[in-house]
């Protein structure tokens, strides 16, 4: 598996908290603290990160990434940490449903060609196996 983020880079995080102080989710839910999550990830304490629900509270708005004085791609790291959580079996119910739809139809939101026809829009292919094929190719990748 390609390493999307390098833990080495997290050494440059000096825990200033600027990511958290600009985060709107942190503002309305103080328990959500991106700088804490980054600290834990940097230390390799993944289990602690995975145990909390925090990863699924991030909206992926990228505000923290834009604010980090060290140029750390905070959002990307939190986003990819989800992949690690999912592979460790911590998959939220919503994702189970979404994955099922994606594998079956190749799209997140099932097509509704009747509705399109009524609106005078051309039909769009309802099912594609592309997502299933891609997941198949990914099987066996580490």
């Amino acid at each position, binding site marked *: *598996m*390609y390493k*999307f983020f390098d833990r080495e880079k997290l050494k440059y995080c000096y825990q200033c908290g600027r990511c958290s102080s600009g985060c*709107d*989710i942190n503002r*309305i*839910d103080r328990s959500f603290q991106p700088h804490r999550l980054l600290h834990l990830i940097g230390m390799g304490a993944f289990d602690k990160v995975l145990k909390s*629900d925090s990863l*699924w*509270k*991030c*909206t*992926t*708005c*990228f*505000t923290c*990434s*834009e604010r980090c004085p060290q140029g750390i*791609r905070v*959002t*990307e790291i939190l*986003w*990819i940490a*989800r*992949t690690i959580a*999912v*592979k460790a079996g911590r*998959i*939220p119910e*919503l*994702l189970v449903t*979404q*994955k099922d739809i*994606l594998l079956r139809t*190749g*799209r*997140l*939101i*099932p*097509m*509704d060609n009747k*509705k*399109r026809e009524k*609106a*005078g*829009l*051309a039909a*769009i*292919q309802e099912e*594609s196996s*592309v*997502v299933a*094929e*891609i*997941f198949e*190719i*990914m099987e066996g*990748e580490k």
Partner: protein
Amino acid sequence: MQYAFYIGCAAPVKALKYEISTRNLAKSLGIELVDIPEFSCCGFPVKSMDSFAALLMAARNLAIAEEKGMDIIGICTGCMAILSEAKEYLEDDNLRNRVNEKLKALGVKEYAGKVKVKHFARFLYEDYRLDRIKGKVAASLAPLKFGIHYGCHYMKPTHAHGCFDDPSTPSTIDDLINITGAKTINYPNKSLCCGLTIMGTAEDLSFKLAAEKLECLSSRGVDAMVLACPSCCIAYENNQRLIGKRVGKEFNLPVFYFTQVIGLAMGLSEEDLGFEFNRVKADRIREKLRY
């Protein structure tokens, strides 16, 4: 010039007014949006499940457009961010080679890194250019006042999009709307996220975020919120009543796509702009424009 139209999976089901108005606006501006049936999901929803699979999915779409020799124009900010990020990742030769190997297995030609990716609003701003649209404005929307919601992924992450707009004080869509004669306001929550991405995993937080902007714009007396992403529209329009109930308020804020507003100024009909699909009706706008 022909462009590969990346419609995404939300717009053609959940945002018919966006699709209709985009197609008709493009047509009257002489921009040829070509539908590409081979395009798949951009990879956004897969990124939380398997980052590499998501990258592969994005790369496949980029490669398909590249093979057809067309740059990509899209209308979903999420799709545009994922495709732009993938472009940036694939500047790395090693990674691109690995991805290209897998693309072969998917029966897609290898990706060289040439295709450009732009949101339709950005394309109008940067490539088509404002003065050309201005020349086509048939009816000034001067009596109207809008609050623009950009959507986080419209310009962020800036390293992937190339810093074309400022994330804390964005202005490109304001500028586009201003050429219709309509005013746009600056408001404190302008760069706030719609929260839709966490609706399924942290609904309470998601709705609180959306409520903040709905409250702010309602209190400022704008005629409508104007936005550029089907997901944001689900948060602010489809869920408006539900969110209002949750926070004990009754919202009545019309929500329009930027394509509908520009089209209106260019004299396109309500039918051509999908107005019938606007949930909070455009009566106030009609009254002010007296048509």
